[in-house]
């Protein structure tokens, strides 16, 4: 599953970013990413939930049980202060990385 491991870093970043807009439950995050990227990003739901739990363990997101719009019990996640900082740092790194790659590609 080489694809999965490549996505692992990106999955964390994307989840952090999504949650920076406000708390959501797992399904909502999945739908949001899908709509936003028009399905380009093969964002595996499995990878998403693994990322969520990983991030929770590292105290970058905080999970808690709540009720969904349909009055069902769902687990909501929100960004913690530490998570916010981590998001900033990782986004920064990603941008620099992407810029470097673009640079190389544009070199012809």
């Amino acid at each position, binding site marked *: 599953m080489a694809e999965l491991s490549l996505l692992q870093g990106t999955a964390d970043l994307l989840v952090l970013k999504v949650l920076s807009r*406000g*708390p959501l*439950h*797992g*399904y909502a995050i*999945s739908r949001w990413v899908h709509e936003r990227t028009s399905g380009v990003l093969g964002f*595996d*739901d*499995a*990878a998403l*939930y*693994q990322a*969520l*739990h*990983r991030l*929770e*363990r590292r105290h970058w997101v*905080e999970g*808690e*049980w*709540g*009720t*969904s719009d*349909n009055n*069902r*019990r*769902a*687990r*909501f996640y*929100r960004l913690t202060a530490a998570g916010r900082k981590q998001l900033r740092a990782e986004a920064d790194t990603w941008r620099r990385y992407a810029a470097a790659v673009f640079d190389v590609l544009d070199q012809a």
Partner: protein
Amino acid sequence: MHPFGRRFFRFPWRTGREVLRDVDEELRFHIDARARDLEGDGVPPIDARAQALREFGDVAATRVYCAGEGRRLERGNRWRCLAEDVRRDTALTFRMLAKQRGFTAVALLTLTLAIGGHTALFSLVNALLLQAPAVASPDRLVRVHMGETLTSYPNYVDVAGHTEVFSGVAIERREPVALQQDARSLTVTGATVSAGYFDVLGVRAARGRVFTSADRDPRLVVVSDRCWRTRLAEDPQAIGRVLALDGIPHQVIGIMPPAFRGLGPPLLAIDLWRPVDEASTAPELRDRAASRFELVARLAPTITRDQAAAAVAVVGAQLEGAYPGDNRGLAQSSVFGVAGFDAFRGSASLAVPLLAFVAVLGVISTFVLAVGCLNLSSMLLARMTARRQEMAVRLALGAGRSRLVRQLLTESLVLAAAGACGGALLASWAVSSLDAVVTGMDAAVPMQLDAAVDARALGYALAVSMCAALAFGIAPALSAPSVALGASLRAGSDGPLRWTRRRLVRALVVAQLAVCTILLVCSGLFFRSLDRARAVDPGFDPSSTLVANLYLNERQYDEPRGLALYDRVLERVRAIEGVSHASFAFVVPLTLSGREEFEIGIDRQASADSNGKARRVLANRISPGYFETVRVPLVAGRDFGKGDRAGAPEVAIINETMARRFWPGSDAIGRTIRLPELGPSRGASGEVAQVVGVVRDSKYATLGESPSPVVYLPLAQQFVRDVTLHVRVRGDEAVVAAQVRAELTRLDPLLTVELARLTDKVAFALIPARVASALTGGFGLLAAALAAIGLYGVAAFSVAQRLRELGIRRALGAQNSDIVRLVARQAFGMTATGLAIGLAIATPAGYAVQSLLVGVAPFDPLTITSVAVMMVLVTALATAVPTRRALRIDPMQTLRAE
């Protein structure tokens, strides 16, 4: 709907199964939601569900992964929660301790004293008993006893040839060495060792180098760090300097590191090491029977000690077979370790008193520690009563009892840790002082303590403090209330546990006082004993007398030549200007020289009396003129004379006790005794000797001994080759000493003679007793201080608790004396009980150590009375401040507060 709010209470921790259940529920929500959305798009329900599952991905793997992460999260949270609690407890503790400055100061003082004393003792024990010599792999070094502790040089050479079990063999002989420096002559302790000694030990010089088997020149010397500092004044050019040792120039080639003290017994400071002159033809090297060296060997890599012991026994048997005369008994050869307790196997005479001493100190310092802990425990318990309000509030707010207990234990731990730091510092100071005292003592034998509060001691201090914390903290912590009662919240009322707690506190203080009493009684007995010891008449006069030990080797001196030498020595020495008397003796009383004891028969009878009890007497072998030299009066008959020699009728002189015991009521002169077979190396006997004189009793082994029968035999008839020359000096001792040495050297240059003052040697034997009583006394006073602190604490809190009661009594007309009586009764009651219990234990204990006491009965009225008075004074002092506070209570204020 977002559920996040301020989290206030902690949830109980989830188990692994609960974590999995949560994950399942979460994933199920997702699948259901997706399926519903798909249905909304028109997909039939069954297909919707299937598609949702497909879209999700690997559900099983996700489930497992997420559950794993969840469990780790729980674990992490649990630790953080604990850390948070601990941090909060510690912060709270510090705040509380800072607020109660008085209590904290007292508690810290108590712990510092108690733990410090204990740690100092441990360092001492470590230095004396536990420490391994500073050599490479000390567990691979062994001492080899070829039949006896010492070996002769030829036997060493033979053993060294057997390399299958030993990778190296070395010998060592420690002896006083005359170090001549700028026309002054110092006596230092030197070790004559084989050339490969340092190789076998695996040590190197800190500066310069050590000699090895490659060095052909025997005129080399390696000095110790201590010697370089004290004798050579830390001379930076010390290497290459030439020192005259016993008149022979040796070149200094190296200085050893400070940690290296050689393989001698603890406390002995070796100043220098020089190689054996292998080319020497001196009899002490060539004589196979001259056992003068200690044999040390390093085990070969794969050899165990048992294998080495077996091999050594075989070699010993072979040597015994080859040289039956010289090597008798070699078949009983064995090996011993060099570190720790093993170092004492060879010298039991040193080991037993040392171990006994250490054991006693250990018991005492444990007592003191116990007193300190009891102190703290009672203080904490007393404070619990004052803190019940605080406890009740916390319980009402939801803290569990375990939380409370944990917080109380944290207090104890913090106190104990602080006490450990203070104690370590105190121990450090105490040990270095002791070190300085020992080094500065410069007695006949230079000593070095080398004890330090090192990592081991610190570890020990910490361990002790933790145990102490548990010991004194557990009682108060466990007495924490478990239920918040409304009554407790009201000021002025006592919780239901008050009664038990009070009793416990009082019991603890009583125990404390009892322990203190025991210590004080013991130290009192020791002090008095020491006092008496100084006044005890030894029965002889050691003043103005110089002594020197002589050893005549067998090859050079057989019995006739040995006796002839003795005669010539006495002749020459008596001729010296300034010498009033001179003589020889085998045993020097009250010193650490040997003793002799055997069974005799009375009047030609067997050596046992009619009841079958053996007639044991102490013995000494002397030359004529001995009694005059040491000023022991002759009460009947005559001294030995020139006529009492080999071949003449056997004679003996006895002391008064012996005369009284065996011939009560009649004259002992002219009676006969049957001497036992004393062995060929000690002169033939088994013969009958006639009593020709009776002398006054004098002390033999210790100052505290009861009079024992002693028989004196003439050297001329009972020859030994190991004697001590006694020279009574009239005038300048140094001048006479030099002349005596000169005369002896003239007679036989190989006689190495070291002259010391007899008073010094006798005083040396008293040092252990002196040290023991000082230490016991010191600890006793320490215990008294601690007990006083404890009493003060209890009295103070008792008064604080009874403020209301006392105020009301005042208001009702109680006088000063009534108040004082109320406060004092409790304190003195406890003291009386403690004293009684303490005495009940101390008296049998006193009987146990009776042998160490000189002229003092274990139930000594003076000591006991003094201790009782002291305890009363201590109690009065301790209760002074609380009593004054009680007297100053304003009844109006108390009534108003109601």
